[in-house]
């Protein structure tokens, strides 16, 4: 039974299903490193998923689908930044508002504009020549046989790490998240940096949603994400605010998702609920052990006030 469950296709699904987690959690990492907790990720994802899907449904163009998802993500990200940075609203609660807005709005638009569940032809798998033919341990199938967005997501991990750790922009982000007063004194515009990171987070959340609706599932339905965006927020803590750590957490969750799919497709009589529960429990335990959290941005959730 074990070899029936842990097949190469399960690991391939793990890689594929990590995509939305990685996009959303990387986006959230930027925001949190600058001191803003965006809890509305799930709502933004749902909107991105819908707009991406709708654009593809109408035009058939995947490029337009991605563009639509990025655009709605950008708009909602800016709105979130306005609420969190300019109006200094309590971030944990305003995020719930953004979530409810996205949840309701995406369903409203879906029912009004599409109505019944339909599917689109999303991003096709790309067989990378030579590499995708590697039979050894199923490596070709596991790593080199995915759609474009999967590769983009994994490519963004080192890119994000580079931006955060090796560029001036990254330094500014970290400064603003660790010590906004000092950053401000150094002449960094705290509000502008936070607007930018939250906008980046919004765009990546929109893309995360689209990766579900036009690359992995190719459908849209009510509450398509079913809370995936909230997990993405937790993954940032889990991954200790580091892109590679975040990717590790994403793979943990997607692995369990893949296992669950496999178990149910084999019609095995194993209650999959406990497998699904496991990563949440592991995350809580990880949060307990990470309680020292020296890496945690000191100013996280604290609005910056110049003292006017």
């Amino acid at each position, binding site marked *: 039974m074990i070899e029936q469950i842990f097949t190469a296709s399960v690991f391939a699904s793990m890689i594929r299903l990590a995509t939305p987690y990685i996009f959303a959690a990387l986006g959230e990492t930027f925001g949190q490193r600058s001191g803003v907790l965006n809890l509305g990720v799930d709502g933004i994802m749902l909107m991105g998923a819908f707009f991406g899907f709708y654009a593809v449904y109408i035009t058939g163009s995947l490029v337009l689908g991605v563009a639509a998802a990025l655009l709605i993500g950008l708009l909602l990200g800016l709105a979130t930044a306005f609420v969190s940075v300019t109006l200094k609203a309590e971030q944990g609660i305003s995020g719930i508002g953004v979530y*409810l807005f996205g949840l309701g709005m995406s369903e409203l638009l879906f029912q009004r504009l599409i109505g019944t569940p339909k599917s689109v032809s999303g991003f096709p798998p790309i067989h990378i020549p030579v590499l995708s033919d590697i039979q050894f341990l199923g490596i070709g199938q596991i790593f080199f046989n995915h759609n474009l967005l999967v590769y983009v997501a994994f490519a963004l991990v080192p890119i994000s790490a580079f931006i955060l750790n090796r560029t001036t922009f990254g330094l500014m982000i970290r400064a603003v998240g660790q010590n906004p007063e000092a950053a401000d004194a150094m002449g960094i515009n705290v509000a502008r940096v936070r607007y930018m990171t939250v906008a980046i987070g919004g765009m990546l959340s929109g893309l995360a949603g689209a990766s579900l609706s036009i690359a992995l599932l190719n459908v849209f339905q009510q509450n398509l994400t079913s809370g995936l965006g909230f997990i993405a927020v937790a993954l940032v803590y889990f991954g200790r605010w580091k892109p590679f750590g975040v990717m590790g957490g994403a793979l943990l969750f997607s692995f369990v998702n893949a296992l669950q799919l496999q178990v149910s497709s084999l019609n095995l009589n194993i209650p999959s609920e406990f497998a699904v529960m496991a990563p949440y429990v592991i995350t809580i335990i990880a949060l307990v052990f990470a309680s020292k959290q020296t890496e945690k941005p000191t100013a996280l*959730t604290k609005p910056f006030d110049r003292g006017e």
Partner: protein
Amino acid sequence: MREFSLKPLWNRLLDIAPLPVALLAAFAVASLLLLALNAAPGQAFASMLQGAFGTENATAETLVKAIPILFVAIGICVAFRGGVTNIGGEGQMIMGALAGVTTALLLKDAPGFVIILASILVGFAAGALYGGLAGFLKAYFNVNEILSTIMLNQVAVQLMNYLLNGPLLDPSEAGLNHIPKTARIVESAELPRLALTVPQFVANLFGWENAELFARTRLHYGLLLAIVLAIVMYILLWRTTIGYRIRAVGQNERAARYAGLNVRRQMVLAMLLAGGFAGLAGVVQVLGLQYRLQTDGSPLGFTANAGFNGIVAALFGGLNPIGAIPASVFFGGLLVGAQKMQRDLAVPAALITAINGLIVVFVVSSQIFSKRRARRRLAAPTPPATAPAAAPAPVQEQTA
């Protein structure tokens, strides 16, 4: 003798002023959305009002919808006042319902009132423990309660799906394509229906057919329980030392610590109470309405989002349990009215979820104004006459 001044009253009014403003702003956006959907806003809101309060049955359905929202909201008031951001209403509600329905099924041979009392107490306790767990992790291990409660929500959903498809599955439902639901509780364990007897002349005045209001509706005694407990919790929060301590921690954790309060204990207590009330929302939903625990397997299948709507109602009630009563009825009305709007104008009821989200965003955003005023008040040379006790400013500085 105290000098007569309108200032305290004015300040109090300004404190709640952001709420109607936030509501108006949300409805302004909703109107734009409706226009974009080719529906006349006036017509849509009229249809909603009609659907929510137009008939005896509509009003009853509104109140039925308000019950779980109010229970959750009472708990949210305690948690948020205590500086703990409880997002776990959904999970705590599920745990309360699971524990409550199990109790009711196990005790099926006991007298009705024993079953009801035991189920309610066990439901409260289960929700309290589940919320308290997040409070404990926050207080003693510095685990962000927003994240832990979100995780615990998902764990609760999975536990419910497991139990309703396995150990708790209704025996008559066994089979491959069963609906995940428990057996029905015995009839004597059902919360009685709530009917109001009004004087005949009042009934005549409104043209009601009889003076037994709500007699043939689904309205149940859960409403009364929720209202009584809202008042109790108001008293607890503002008229007892326990509540004073909880609020002190929420207002200023550091000051509370210097004043010698056991901050950790207050946090756990706030979360125990918050979880307990969410648990009540779950168990009362079982005993008063569904008579079993049933879900469609989705995260919102049983709770119908009450765990989140309770947050909306609590915020809109000014984080005051008594304020939460009309707020919950209002949001219950929105949800029920939206169904009629959907039938009349083909505007999807999901609009209400979006509006609720906007209300949350607008309410928390508008707090910047009350914060500014509070600061100005502090900076004023002569402190206003109503320094202590009055005007619980809905401001809470809170850190992760």
